[in-house]
């Protein structure tokens, strides 16, 4: 009894004190939101940058102290660096590929840009400037200087740090491919020597190609930017201090943590618009730098940005940084627009942008989406561009549809509308899937696509439709959970496409290899069509088949469905009859065609493949259905428009007479 009483007392004491909570990861709270007590990422790099902008000469004189933590598990003696600005030279790989795309393209002098490394010193190993050499890991173009490697006299042991001090000078081009100057505006991206990524057991440091973007390790950036006093500066990260200098300049210091790039912008003509938003991880300061003429788009930008923050926070995961900067390039600066950097992105608009053209909103939704898929889930943009562009484009479509309506999320006029999914098919404002359906698979490295059109079509348009079709297969909620899981699992790392695909399979509980092997790894065309659809009256010579209930005429209806393309996909078929009855079929699509036969006292009215419009990868939606009585409304509408246009054209020409 005494023993029992003692045990009971212990239990009561335990209950009174309370059970300890189940331990969470040190930097994560119950919602999955990240706390700031520890770093969010494995910080491989720490950059200290000091840069001075010469507005007149369009140059930047800079120094960089890079502390590289050797977490490769191997001794490292050779370190490759990206020197992206050297792409803007006449015979670089980038230039040659640009000319291949457009033979009329001219590398005029103002488009030239460069980065010249003047000195590189490694702590404890001395001046290694003489050991720098340009390499071309992707082609044999010796004139391409976008990758430099330096070999140290002795290796850096695994787990140790190595510190590089680099002095360099940038010559900025007039805005081309996201970077450069235009009048008093500077967009400074990919401007410092950036060490490559040790990935899959080797250095991954590709040359800068016309069709590729970037890949880098996570870390910290401390940057001191010296600019003329009247410049308004925006950059990745937080402002630490602003100090006036005696020579008419000021030095603005920024710090960014757990990011993999540092870009900045400056212009005395920006109008600053500030706001804030609070999400799962806390308040986010919004800073918009608006160029002259675009003020009327500020409200549109802000609405789209807050909507994107809200939906990404709810659907994918919390936005962990405490600020986001939107940069609106000036008129004529289209080449600087529509680009993403961690916690900063560039938008795009015109001063006369009609309300019914949702271009500013689309760019915001897309570029903000990259804060998640590129900024935090930092996939290799050279080798697997669709993992950030395609998934971001898919999320852009989801956000735009939620904010502005599915049918009019791109164009919203009474006389014409266009939705996101449809635009990703046809490519009116984006890169459309239908422009290049079978030249290249999603799995191809970015610089090996057939051309720029194929790159855009396959990395933007096709993944949207591939994921939208996948969403129909596994369900919207499951798709959302899959993306949420993928994000939480792989943020601040460098996942591969298999990581993504396996996550989807794991969350959905389905084996989706049959789909991925065709949609991701293949170039199979998906096209189903109604091959035959008709009703023949059954006469007494057919065995006297008449309806036993009152002698109604019987019809034998045939509906044949053909798989025209080589993509095998199960499809539904809906057959509607004149008495209102419906027959639903499901075909696995394995064979080349299938025929259904119905004997009914009703004729065929219509046969429709995929009546719920799930199979968005189908290249031809017009042959998916057949109506027996023809409907001429559409052709009459088009006839009216074409006739009108031709008549008016005639009268315009007749003005010459």
């Amino acid at each position: 009894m005494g023993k029992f009483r003692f045990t009971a007392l212990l239990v009561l004491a335990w209950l009174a004190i309370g059970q300890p909570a189940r331990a969470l990861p040190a930097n994560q709270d119950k919602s999955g939101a990240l706390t700031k007590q520890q770093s969010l990422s494995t910080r491989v790099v720490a950059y200290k940058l000091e840069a001075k902008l010469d507005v007149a000469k369009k140059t930047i004189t800079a120094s960089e102290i890079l502390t590289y933590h050797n977490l490769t598990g191997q001794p490292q003696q050779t370190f490759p660096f990206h020197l992206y600005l050297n792409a803007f030279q006449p015979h670089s790989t980038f230039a040659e590929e640009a000319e291949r795309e457009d033979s009329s393209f001219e590398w005029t002098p103002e488009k030239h840009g460069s980065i010249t490394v003047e000195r590189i010193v490694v702590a404890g190993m001395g001046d290694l400037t003489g050991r720098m050499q340009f390499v071309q890991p992707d082609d044999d173009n010796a004139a391409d200087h976008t990758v430099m490697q330096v070999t140290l006299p002795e290796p850096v042991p695994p787990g140790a740090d190595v510190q590089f001090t680099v002095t360099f000078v940038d010559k900025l081009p007039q805005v081309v491919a996201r970077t450069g100057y235009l009048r008093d505006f500077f967009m400074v991206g990919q401007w410092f020597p950036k060490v490559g990524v040790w990935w899959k057991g080797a250095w991954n440091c590709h040359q800068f190609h016309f069709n590729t973007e970037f890949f880098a390790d996570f870390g910290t950036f401390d940057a001191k930017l010296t600019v003329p006093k009247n410049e308004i500066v925006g950059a990745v990260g937080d402002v630490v201090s602003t100090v006036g200098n005696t020579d008419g300049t000021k030095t603005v210091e920024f710090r960014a943590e757990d990011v993999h790039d540092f870009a900045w912008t400056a212009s005395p003509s920006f109008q600053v618009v500030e706001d804030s938003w609070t999400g799962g991880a806390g308040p986010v300061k919004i800073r918009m730098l608006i160029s002259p003429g675009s003020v009327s788009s500020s409200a549109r930008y802000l609405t789209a940005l807050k909507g994107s923050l809200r939906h990404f926070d709810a659907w994918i995961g919390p936005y962990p940084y405490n600020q986001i900067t939107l940069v609106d390039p000036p008129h004529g600066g289209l080449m600087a627009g529509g680009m993403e950097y961690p916690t900063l992105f560039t938008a795009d608009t015109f001063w006369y942008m009609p309300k019914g053209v949702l271009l500013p909103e689309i760019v915001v939704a897309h570029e903000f989406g990259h804060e998640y898929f590129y900024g935090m889930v930092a996939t290799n943009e050279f080798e697997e561009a669709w993992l950030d562009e395609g998934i971001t484009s898919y999320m852009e479509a989801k956000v735009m549809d939620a904010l502005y309506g599915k049918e009019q999320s791109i164009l919203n006029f009474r006389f014409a509308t266009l939705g996101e999914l449809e635009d990703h098919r046809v490519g009116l404002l984006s890169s459309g899937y239908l422009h290049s359906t079978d030249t290249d698979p999603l799995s191809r490295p970015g610089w090996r696509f057939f051309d720029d059109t194929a790159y855009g079509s396959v990395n933007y348009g096709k993944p949207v439709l591939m994921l939208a079709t996948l969403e129909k297969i596994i369900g919207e909620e499951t798709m959302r959970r899959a993306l949420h899981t993928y994000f939480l699992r792989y943020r601040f790392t460098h996942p591969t496409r298999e990581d993504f695909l396996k996550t989807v399979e794991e969350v959905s509980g389905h084996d989706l290899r049959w789909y991925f092997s065709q949609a991701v790894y293949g170039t199979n065309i998906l096209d189903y069509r109604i091959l035959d659809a008709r009703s023949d009256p059954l006469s007494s010579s057919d065995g006297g088949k008449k309806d036993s209930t009152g002698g109604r005429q019987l019809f034998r209806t045939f509906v044949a469905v053909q798989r025209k393309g080589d993509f095998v996909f199960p499809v539904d078929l809906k057959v509607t009859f004149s008495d209102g009855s419906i027959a639903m079929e499901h075909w696995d699509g394995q064979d080349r065609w299938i025929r259904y036969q119905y004997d009914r006292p009703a004729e065929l009215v219509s046969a429709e493949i995929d009546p719920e419009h799930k199979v968005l990868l189908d290249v031809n939606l017009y042959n998916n259905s057949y109506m027996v009585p023809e409907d001429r409304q559409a052709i009459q509408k088009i006839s009216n428009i074409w006739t009108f246009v031709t008549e008016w054209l005639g009268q315009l020409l007749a003005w010459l007479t």
Partner: protein
Amino acid sequence: MAELKPKTFLAGARLVWRQQRALWLIYAANLVLASVATRDPLARTAAILNHSLAGWRLVHGFDLGAYVELQLHPSMPFNGGRPVMVYSAMLFAIFLLFVTGGLLTAYYQDRRLSPGPFFAACGEYFWRLLRLMIYFTVALVPIGILAAVAGALFKKIDRESISPFPSWYFLALAAAIIAALLLSARLWFDLAELLAVADGEDSMRRTLGRAAKLLRGNFLALFWLYLRISLIGWIGFWLGLYVWMEHLRPEATTQAVLMSQALIVFWLATRLWQRASGALWLRQFEPQLNSQAPGVPAQPPAPPSTSLEPAPN
């Protein structure tokens, strides 16, 4: 300087109404040529659309993506059909050039011409009008050069200006000047065409010279006449387009057809209004014209009519 009688502006409209057979003839040709040009592409488009449920995306509203997808369809001939529509437009321009002789004769004499005399006048003046048309295209060259210079200046201002607006203000001003020059050139050649018909003069260069002299002495009045009618044409046309696009139901095909054809007729009518007003204005000069033109018997002018009824033959 001849006085531009206050009612020339309205009298011109009434003249077009009285001579509306010409308007309907030209409109019919426009419609027939356009219909013939679009027949084949429409037939092939109909083969895709008529039995497809996907066509509803073009009927209920207008899904631009569905339309572009139609253009991308492998069997879609639109890219191949486009030149045919341009040829049709060119044919119409030639037809209008042909009937201009008869049209101007009817306007100048303000009498209804039966088909025989109408087409006889068409044939009689066709080569002269053709020559004038060639001279007109030459006259457009300096305006074209000016437009190219304005375009280059626009780009330069746009490149150098921090604000986007100065270049667009410049463009608006340049466009207005170029439009005024084009209108003036058209006015000059319209006068020349009228003189060719009124005088029976064979030398078009001389006719152009006399038209220039007439225009120089009466520029403001004539320019204002033409400008008003052009403005009515452009504003009315765009208003009509607005009503069509914004206020007609997307499924209302019949209403859309009526509206679109009404716009075509309206556009054509305003152009004929300019021709008719010019003819009425020129008739004031008939004694001087007849005294200047060698060997041309004087035609007694028909009394100016303010009614809708045709003048007696």
